[in-house]
């Protein structure tokens, strides 16, 4: 029983990291209607940006996290403006954009390797003793990750339901042509979507790097398909679905590790994905009119 609750605790941490990442991916997909395979590289960049600010700039960890996350937001906007938008403007099929995003991922991955080298790095978080919280055993860093994820999810909810930008993003996700004729500047909203999506990816990358012992170039890319599993299980392009999908996949991967060989935990995420696609292909929260 103790192992079960320990694994549920780990599940909450993994679900939190996944939620940050999958909600960001969903927001961007909802607005642009194409999948960004460079998203894993965004996670990697977030970890390296924050690590550089922390170790090179000697700034507090909290500030390093904020700068790292916002930095990836800016990278997202630049990728959109310099690369993706020229393809969308020219009316290229969505499949082309998928291939282009693969290319961007490779470029960013090589930039990371070139700038920071191939050696693993780690966040020098002060040695932490795990705390007993109910049946869970969690370190303060893990608690912070869960807290950051909860605050971020509430923030995303408020953004989507209370702000003009969030409503415009939902309108674009629903019906981009109608959003445009309703007076919404879709280029501007798209820019914001990339910034928010990139920032959440950066935050997820930092959380992932802190929750694991070390990180190296390509560690975000390795996590990408688990993020896709959470997004698809939740319902493509649906931020609330992505939250649910992240919770489900996070829990399944970690709780299963308590009973079967942990090396199969990622495989289990895809078993969940396949079962979901068979039983409910539209995901937990279906999207309308998405490619």
């Amino acid at each position, binding site marked *: 029983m103790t192992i079960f609750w320990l694994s549920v605790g780990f599940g909450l941490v993994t679900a939190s990291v996944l939620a940050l990442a999958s909600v960001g991916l969903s927001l961007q997909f909802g607005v642009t209607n194409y999948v960004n395979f460079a998203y894993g590289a965004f996670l990697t960049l977030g970890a390296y940006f924050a690590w550089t600010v922390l170790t090179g700039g000697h700034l507090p960890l909290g500030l390093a996290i904020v700068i790292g996350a916002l930095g990836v937001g800016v990278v997202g906007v630049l990728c959109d403006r310099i690369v993706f938008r020229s393809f969308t403007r020219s009316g290229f099929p969505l499949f082309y954009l998928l291939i282009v995003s693969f290319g961007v991922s490779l470029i960013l991955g090589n930039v990371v390797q070139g700038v920071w080298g191939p050696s693993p790095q780690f966040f020098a978080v002060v040695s932490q003793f795990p705390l007993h919280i109910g049946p869970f055993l969690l370190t303060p860093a893990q608690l912070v990750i869960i807290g950051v994820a909860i605050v971020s999810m509430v923030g995303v909810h408020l953004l989507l339901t209370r702000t003009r930008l969030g409503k415009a993003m*939902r*309108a674009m996700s*629903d*019906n981009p042509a*109608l959003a445009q*004729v309703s*007076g919404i500047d879709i280029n501007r909203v798209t820019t914001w979507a990339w910034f928010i999506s990139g920032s959440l990816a950066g935050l997820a990358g930092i959380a992932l790097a802190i929750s694991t012992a070390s990180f190296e170039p390509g560690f975000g890319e390795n996590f990408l398909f688990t993020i896709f599993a959470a997004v698809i299980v939740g319902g493509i392009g649906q931020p609330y679905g992505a939250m649910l999908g992240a919770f489900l996949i996070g829990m399944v991967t970690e709780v299963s590790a308590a009973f079967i060989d942990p090396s199969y935990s990622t495989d289990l995420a895809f078993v969940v994905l396949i079962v979901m696609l068979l039983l409910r292909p539209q995901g937990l929260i279906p999207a*309308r009119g998405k490619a």
Partner: protein
Amino acid sequence: MSALQAEGLTTGYGSVPVVSNVSMEARSGEVVVLVGPNGAGKSTFLKGLFGLLRHTTGRVVVDGRDVSGWPPHRIARCGMAYVPQVSNIFPTMSVVENLEIGGFASGGDVRQRIDEVLAIFPDLARSPRAKAGSLSGGQQNILGMARSLMLSPKVVLLDEPTAGLAPRYVGTVWEQVGRLSTAGTAVMVVEQNVELAMRHSDRVYVLVAGRVRLHGTPEEIRRHDLTALFLGGGATPSAEVGEQSMRSV
């Protein structure tokens, strides 16, 4: 006063023009209807007017301002609204949120305007929190029209607002069109049902194969054999239209 003026507009998809050198006008408080056979270019023309399709020739003037080449969101902000034939709502958003998006470009608090618009459409006011996608087809068309009014436009373009609707909603939609024109708005409607168009319009444009073949009041248009015209019959427009008040373009 002319609220909308299109002069020599040529537009289409890619490099293929669907409508060529079309000129039309809608005055304040007037209901102008575009009729024509399938594929005549009626909906394409509306999209061209609203900047959703590029036009290769001509210009569009809204309330005295040349909006040619403007992106749709800017055109929406200068006093013209457009309600597409299909997908004219945001299905996962509530009725009120749809209206909020309609007033997005105003930049301010739109609650008072939402109340005003809901007062015009009591059917929508009964379920303001309902998801738009859960409304009936007729209610969705009404919501599309209500959304378009949020910015108090000078011109409203309606693309087949009664297509596929139950008869009771057809009357409601035309009733609302009438109210709009009474309030001083110029309304340009694409309509497949010629008889309905004649009954509810002040002026009618007949579009065939991407060109205006007739133009006049419903009474003037009724004097012509539209079926033959729709089937490609008739001589050149100028020879066909004899009345002085009726212009061919």
